[in-house]
């Protein structure tokens, strides 16, 4: 099998897969963009193999494949950082939600006491997450 053809089909499959995930709302657009960009880059370099050589000559890399490796690593790094940033945002949001539920629970309890209503069930801490400390 022709190497170019193989790369071409891989890139096409990735592209279709990403669009499909997006279409089914399994992935949000902001996470898909990077992967679609990868697929497009692979697609372009499969169709025009000389582009990679010209580009590596331009930035001073002798072996074109090294440019590919470098670009690939860089891209994975960017994706990892993006995900870490998203996780941090989520942690921050879940912290705010946890505080808010605690404050609301307290408010409900005080209203119950004031009105003489029967108290609700106590909070059951989730053992799977209660060990997760920020330290």
């Amino acid at each position, binding site marked *: 099998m022709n190497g170019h053809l193989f790369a071409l089909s891989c890139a096409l499959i990735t592209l279709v897969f990403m669009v499909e995930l997006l279409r089914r709302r399994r992935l949000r657009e902001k996470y898909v963009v990077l992967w679609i960009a990868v697929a497009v880059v692979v697609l372009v370099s499969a169709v025009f193999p000389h582009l990679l050589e010209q580009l590596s000559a331009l930035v001073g890399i002798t072996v074109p494949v090294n440019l590919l490796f470098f670009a690939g690593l860089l891209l994975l790094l960017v994706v990892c950082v993006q995900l870490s940033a998203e996780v941090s945002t989520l942690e*921050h949001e879940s*912290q705010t939600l*946890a*505080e808010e*539920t*605690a*404050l609301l*629970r*307290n408010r409900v*309890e*005080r209203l119950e006491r004031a009105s003489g209503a029967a108290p609700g069930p*106590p*909070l059951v*801490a*989730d*053992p799977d*997450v*209660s*060990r*997760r*400390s*920020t*330290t």
Partner: protein
Amino acid sequence: MASPLDRRVLVVLPAWNEAESLPTVLTEIRTHLPGVSVLVVNDGSSDETSALARRHDVEVLDLPFNLGVGGAMRAGFRYALAEGFDAVVQVDADGQHDPRDVPSLVEGLDRSDIVIGARFAERGEYEVRGPRRWAMRVLADVLSRLARTPLTDTTSGFRASGPRAIRLFAVHYPAEYLGDTIESLVLAVRGGLTVEQVGVAMRARSAGRPSQHPAKAAVYLLRACLALGISLTRRSQMLVTAEVAA
């Protein structure tokens, strides 16, 4: 000692699995600080902490999972802000802080926005050695310079916050490692709040031992410096200075 009683003071105890020591601490607070409101923030404990606190007839915030001291305290500050308290005093639930020192901390709020109960100042028998000691020295020096006041024990969790500090911390209270002590001070000073310290006696924890292992202490030193360095380089526009000044 008239001024501490003029203020509406809320004692906040962040508690994570402190069922052993919490009852003693709560009883002490009741004895030495009658009429002071107490809030226990149960930080996702898996033991009896929440139930025990309720039995002592204090307000309880139940966090559904562990947020760390920073998250627990921010919840406490939000509660204080919503309920209109003028002062929040953070007291550890492990019994290392003496409730009898609370009035002198609250008294300091007449002069400053934040009063730290320092374990090295004047009295108390508190001894740390090795890297942990150096870390505390470096932190103290840097923060003293920043706050323009001598601070010797910046990692003390025993502190009182006045109305302006409550307004700041209800929105911005760092939940990072050591954020509740070091970063919150940087945040406060950057936000134009004043800080001072008073000496307090420090007691051994009634349950559990502090870590003094050299490797752990070294990690502590590194993380403390990182936390300090990062918070010093952070842009101060992120603060709600205008809101605090209002």
